């Protein structure tokens, strides 16, 4: 391995994003939430929007997300973050509210709020973390729990006859005309993390360009409630979640495609 010269040795290669607080995450080891928070922080830095961003937290393991960002933030009741963000944006078009929601929050109790924010084409951004489980309350079935998957409320595995089928949020919401950018990404490898960041950045850019609703679903591990070790959780995600929840961009309206072309991966 080549030795670094003194200039290179002084170069900072990796540090906490400026828009994030010096505060250790409270998440379990191997949790995906911490990775996603960091990506949001990096994007806020790169787009220079810390002073305009509003962190609209939800209820779940990310309940206190506003504690980690150096921007204004607030809590919302379980499932209602898109309604809260809608009002903030309507009242202050110059602000950049983003909701950060889990799958129980967004795809169960908050289904109406996210569907109608999308239908109205609210100019807000949603970061939707799908870990196929209710993390905070201790591992019960989520609307996104896979068939035959163990949870503390489906101990013999989720059976469709009793508990229905997992909801594919991106596919469902992309049918709504008010959505401008919808993508599903994951964070189970460095390459996947880089792609996830690009999607999150494009989602924020979509809002900054007033193009309509943007949502990024992030498939994310919950080793604690999946009852697998952190590293194995990344493999479990690839093996079980990816077939049910294919990655990709589900909605890119023309104006967003043009934006994407214009900025590339910057």
């Amino acid at each position, binding site marked *: 391995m080549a030795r670094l010269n003194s200039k290179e040795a002084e170069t900072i290669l990796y540090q906490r994003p400026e828009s994030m607080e010096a505060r250790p995450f409270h998440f379990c080891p191997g949790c995906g939430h911490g990775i996603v928070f960091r990506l949001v922080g990096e994007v806020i830095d790169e787009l220079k929007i*810390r*002073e*305009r961003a509003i962190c609209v937290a939800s209820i779940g393991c990310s309940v206190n997300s*506003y504690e980690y960002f150096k*921007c204004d933030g*607030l*809590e919302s009741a379980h499932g209602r973050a898109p309604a809260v963000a809608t009002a903030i944006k309507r*009242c202050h078009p110059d*602000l950049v509210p983003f909701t950060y929601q889990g799958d129980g929050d967004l795809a169960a109790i908050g289904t109406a709020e996210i569907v109608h924010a999308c239908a109205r084409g609210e100019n807000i951004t949603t970061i939707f973390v799908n870990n196929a489980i209710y993390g905070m309350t201790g591992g019960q079935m989520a609307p996104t729990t896979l068939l035959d998957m163990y949870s503390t409320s489906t101990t013999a595995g989720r059976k469709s006859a009793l508990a229905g089928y997992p909801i594919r949020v991106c596919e469902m919401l992309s049918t709504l005309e008010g959505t401008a950018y919808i993508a599903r990404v994951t964070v189970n490898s460095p390459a996947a993390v880089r792609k996830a960041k690009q999607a999150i950045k494009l989602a924020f850019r979509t809002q900054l360009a007033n193009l309509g609703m943007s949502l990024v679903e992030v498939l994310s591990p919950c080793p604690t409630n999946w009852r697998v070790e952190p590293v194995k959780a990344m493999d479990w995600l690839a093996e079980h979640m990816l077939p049910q929840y294919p990655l990709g961009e589900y909605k890119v309206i023309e104006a967003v495609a043009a934006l994407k072309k214009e900025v590339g991966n910057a």
Partner: protein
Amino acid sequence: MSEKTLMAGNIAIAEGAILAHCQAYFGYPITPQNELLEHMSKRMPEEGRVFVQTESELAAINMVYGAAASGCRAMTTTSSPGFSLQQEGLSYMAGAEIPAVVVNVMRGGPGLGDIGGAQGDYFQAVKGGGHGDYHLITLAPSSVQEMMDFAMLAFELADKYRNPVILLPDGFLGQAIEPVVMRPPVTKLPEKPWAITGARGRPKNIINSFAMDPVDYQPHVALLRQKFQRIKQNEVRYEGINLDDAALVMVAYGSAFRSAMTAMQMARQAGLKVGIFRPITLFPFPVAPLSNLSQKVKSFLVVELSLGQLIEDVRLSLSAEAKVELVNQFGGVPISADEILEAIEKIMK
């Protein structure tokens, strides 16, 4: 400015809110307050302000929360079933100290009930209604003029205490048409340095009603308790009519008060010394004024459009010797002056 305009109660609330510089309105249709939402759908955009017809009353109250948390005067209006859906949001707002105005034009209940006027949501409004320890300032108008005036007052009190305020008319008042004197618009709004408006040139603001550790949350609730105490000390409002010589005092608010007024006039013509005590703030309830009154008067008649809710607060306020009777209607049916007069005569004979 003292020229009078004929106006329906629901419209007076809408115009009062606009005069109070309500910057954002969110609502979902429900009878008997639809005209209010419809009126706002025209007037708010005319004034360059925010109007959203929401997917539910849940969304409406949470949009009010977001708008008010970002420093705007915000309002939603609904009727009883919708008000039930808003209780969680009201608890969050009381917990996070978010000032906003919620109007419940009460209808007959429980359940889907009917679209007549009623006062069955009294407990829900004045005792908290949602989860946890909190109170909402609750104003009870009894005329169309008061619908306008109290809508304005509601915004003022909400900002003064950083607490939601409930305006609690019944469906009969919402539909009533009466002359109204328009008020001058509010031009100066209070500063809200706590609001989430973007962390520009200041430390970030956070709005929540949450702590990981109960030991950290309890002091917050203790502060709320102090605030509710201040509200009880400073904001009691009521009206007394013909109390000086009264041998019997009726206690009533809203449209029940209007029927009681007519009954009082009829009783006085018949030589019966009847007065009326009208609570204007249902929270804070006028406990001390009623208690003082019961040093002098021993006979009370509560007139309400519910099964016996107001009467509980009246009983708690009065001296032990005072006798309290109830005459009421419920389930969306109005009360007539004749029914009340009959009850008066029965007591006074």
